């Protein structure tokens, strides 16, 4: 899949410097006393603007928790997170919601779409929630790139799994958020559909300067990223820049996953 975006969109210049999201000494504890589970133990990590970063780690390593905290879906027990120019730790639920609405895009593993809405309505949902004007040209372009032009009027249950994930990608892209968080976006897809989705994500980073943070346990998926961060037992233990599947797999093995 080599189809790409015709021109870089306005808004997020690809050349911008500085990290899009920074976590400093973030910890997360569930429960109290003996039952306390330390999901994150002092994680400090930054995610560069215009980069595609993968978070990897064995089950229970805290990678999903980290993502949820970074995206403002979950609160932290300690430390701070800065998203763009805003510190999100300590924001109220309403402030967090508005922040997500304006600055964050999501692609989940499954159940990404509202069954009552058509593909197009699903794509436009975040913009409409935020009450933002729809840039038709940009929408057309995104839709064309993800190959959904003739599927816009369909409802999710009329789309294949791959098509559904592509709708989710389009939804995340069309709002031009500061960061897109993707949680196992290809976990439910066959390898062909998965490769398609990952290619979109990569080209959106390369050509539009979109920032993406992706949680995955699949070394192949991780190899699409510019950088892979490894977590184990709630701590960042390693990272690879410009990863290949083999390198990722080796590192995972060495981490004992």
């Amino acid at each position, binding site marked *: 899949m080599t189809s790409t975006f015709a021109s870089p969109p306005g808004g997020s210049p690809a050349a911008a410097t500085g990290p899009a999201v920074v976590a400093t000494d973030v910890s997360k504890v569930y429960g109290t006393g003996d039952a306390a589970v330390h999901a994150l133990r002092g994680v400090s990590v930054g995610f560069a603007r215009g980069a595609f970063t993968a978070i990897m780690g064995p089950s229970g390593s805290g990678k999903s928790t980290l993502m949820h905290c970074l995206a403002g879906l979950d609160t932290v027990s300690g430390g701070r997170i800065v998203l763009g120019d805003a510190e999100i730790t300590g924001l109220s639920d309403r402030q967090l919601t508005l922040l997500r609405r304006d600055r964050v895009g999501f692609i989940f593993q499954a159940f990404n779409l509202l069954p*009552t809405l058509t593909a197009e309505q699903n794509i436009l949902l975040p913009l409409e929630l*935020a009450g933002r004007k729809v840039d038709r040209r940009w929408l057309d372009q995104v839709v064309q790139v993800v190959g959904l032009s003739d599927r816009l009027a369909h409802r999710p249950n009329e789309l294949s799994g791959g098509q559904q994930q592509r709708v989710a990608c389009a939804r995340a892209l069309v709002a031009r958020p500061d960061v897109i968080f993707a949680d196992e976006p290809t976990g439910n897809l066959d390898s062909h559909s998965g490769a398609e989705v990952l290619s979109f994500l990569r080209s959106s980073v390369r050509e539009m300067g979109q920032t993406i943070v992706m949680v995955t346990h699949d070394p192949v998926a991780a190899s699409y990223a510019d950088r892979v961060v490894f977590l184990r037992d709630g701590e960042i233990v390693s990272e690879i820049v410009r990863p290949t599947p083999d390198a990722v797999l080796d590192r995972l093995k060495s981490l004992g996953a």
Partner: protein
Amino acid sequence: MLKTTLAGLRAHKLRLLLTGLAITLGVGFISGTFVLTDTMDKGVGKTFARSAGKVDVAVLPKSDAPGARVPADILQRVRALPGVTDVQGKVQGDAALIGKKGKAVGNMPTVGMSVPTGRLLRYDVDKGRTPSGGAETVLDTQTAKREGFKVGDAVTILDKASRPHRFTVVGIVDFGIDHEIGYRGAVGFDAATTMLMTGERQYREIDVAGGNREAVAAAVGPRYRTYTGAELGAKLARAAGADTKVIRTGLLIFGLVAMLVSALVIYNTFSILIAQRMREMALLRCVGATRRQVFGGVLAESAVVGLVGSALGVLAGLGLGAGALVLIGDLNPQNKVGGLTLTGRTVAVAMAVGVIVTVLSAVLPARTATRVPPVAALRNDLEPGSRRFRLGRLRTALAAVLGAIGLALGGLGSLVMEKGEIAMDVVAFAGGVFFLGVIAAMPALVRPLGRVAGAIPARLGGVPGRLAVANAQRAPRRTATTTIALTIGIGLMSLFSVVAASGKASAAAQLEEQFPAEFQVEPQAADGEVRLPHALAAALAGRRELARVIEVRRLKTGVDGRKETVAAITAAAMGTVMKPEMAHGSLSDLKPGTVMVDEGTAKDRRLSVGNTVRIATAHGTAPVRLAAIYGKGTPVSGFIVPEADFDRHFTVRDPSVIYLKTADGVPAAVARKVVDDASRPYPTARVTSAAEYKESLSKAIDMILMIFGGLLGLAIVIALFGIANTLTLSVVERTRESALLRALGLTRRQLRRMLSVEALVMAVIGAFTGVVLGVAFGWAATNAMGNHTVFSLPYLQVGGFVVLAGAAGTLAAVMPARRAAKASIVESLATG
């Protein structure tokens, strides 16, 4: 399997509670009805048993005819029997008590009763003592309280001929549970005075102390029936109990409506639960449960829910019954009642109804549960109820057939058939049939109705509004059942308000005919042959504030050998104030020596213009030619002769009714005062104004409507629980969806609003359907009721129902919405 069921129920207490509540309310209503009426019955029975305990033998006329009496010689005969220590005859007639304002109290004269002395006194003397002699009276407790009299007061009571007599009140007596006394009030004298006052010479009943029944029976002969004290008590209690039976039946009808709504709510809840627990069912099948076991499991679950809900319902019924008793006690202290009565029958009936309704409602969902294939446990299925919806051939056919039959019968009853009770029954049946058709068609109607109901919220509510409207329509069957439960209550409510409004309009139209003038003066009387003095009419005629004084004189006399009303109306009023529609001939045909008659009588007696009728007059029979036949438009019916002829034929000078027309420019209050002043010397003359009458009528109708509304309120509340229930389960089902929306930037408030709007749309769909059905069949019922009914649509009320239902629906969404908004996004994303 039972263990699994019970464990599942324990794990989902909230689910149990929500489902059980619908049944609790319905059962509560039914058991409350029984508690109320049983307690009333028991109170009645106790009272009568106590008073009847004082009587050894009672003698009553065998015939049930209203005029049947026991003559005085029978009393003498019984008194002479050996062993008889006391005999008292019960005399009862009219004796109008004059109130403090100089007017006879109440709409009808108070009842004059004989009060026995000694052992046979079976009334409670609350204060003072029993009366004796021609100058003493006792007052009924309620009457004394209402009119502000106490022991020692001097009161005026009119005798049969309306002559005033002065009495001293020597006691206040509770005459017990008696409808007539409750309504009219009562005064009591000794037996001789009662006879003088009421003109009654015979007894309603003879009470005997001592002696034995056989001897008494032999003495009185076969035309009289004898009772022992216990039998008398039971007979009286039965008569009074007939009232509670009517109340019970009426309340139970509303209870059944409530149960029907409960059944719908339970059916829906179980359907949704089964859909959501598809995996659980499949897992059970995987580990070896047979279809039968799954079916039995679901039914067992419903039985437990039904049992718990019904048990709570019986408790709620006790509370409801107690509340109703307090309410009734406030309204009508005549009905004294003791502690609450909870009989075994009440518990049994209430529990049986509750459990059976619950289990039956769960049968269809249970059958669906058996169809879940074991492999579904392993599949990650689509959300339940989201498949593309088609109404199915059977349902379509059913809806079409039932709808057509309903419409045809409704048309037949309202337009074609002869007006009256049968036509109304046909319309009612048609309404039921058509409603069944609507139930069948409802799933297909949800989407179009949802678009209509959701048009405004979808436009104004932004994204949450639009999502809500879409959500309300996404599972048409579920929404249909949820809304139809509300349709029942709202539909009946609208039906009643349309019929009530039409009844008011019809009555108003009728009133204009029957009440041709502003005021009407009538004698207070228990029967028809009482008149007003002509002097009153003469006095009123002298007042310039009154433009016209119309006297209607009438009497019953033989016409062609049958008793008929013959009347005369002040000549000047004919054709001016009294303007009857003429069926044959005209008013000017009514010349001396002729008569006109109303259409009904003419038809009945096969009379036509030109016939001669023979009227029995004071001077023998007079042949009179029938000159005209009149229709509606006059308050008088029967044979009307010219005034001069009436004077010639009869000696009756006093009018039965006087109508008064106010002169132009005289305010109503001024005219009223003139009329009141003029009638003051005549205590029994009752002045009513058309406006007052209309108002009291309208109040009475509103009162009935309010009672119906209150009773139907329960069905509506249950339906609202149904909405809350459906919404709660939908929220559970859409946990991940809500989480996704929250992740994408839907605020908590927007999420809450989304669910409120969904509830609003569902409530409005249900209410709107109900209002349409109610108005349509209200129209049909009004048409079927009679020939001269006027249809009236109470726009505000009916519109109000829809608005109120919408508001209540939003209220029903509060709890589920709060729960949904509180859910953590991260946890919700992880579920399922």
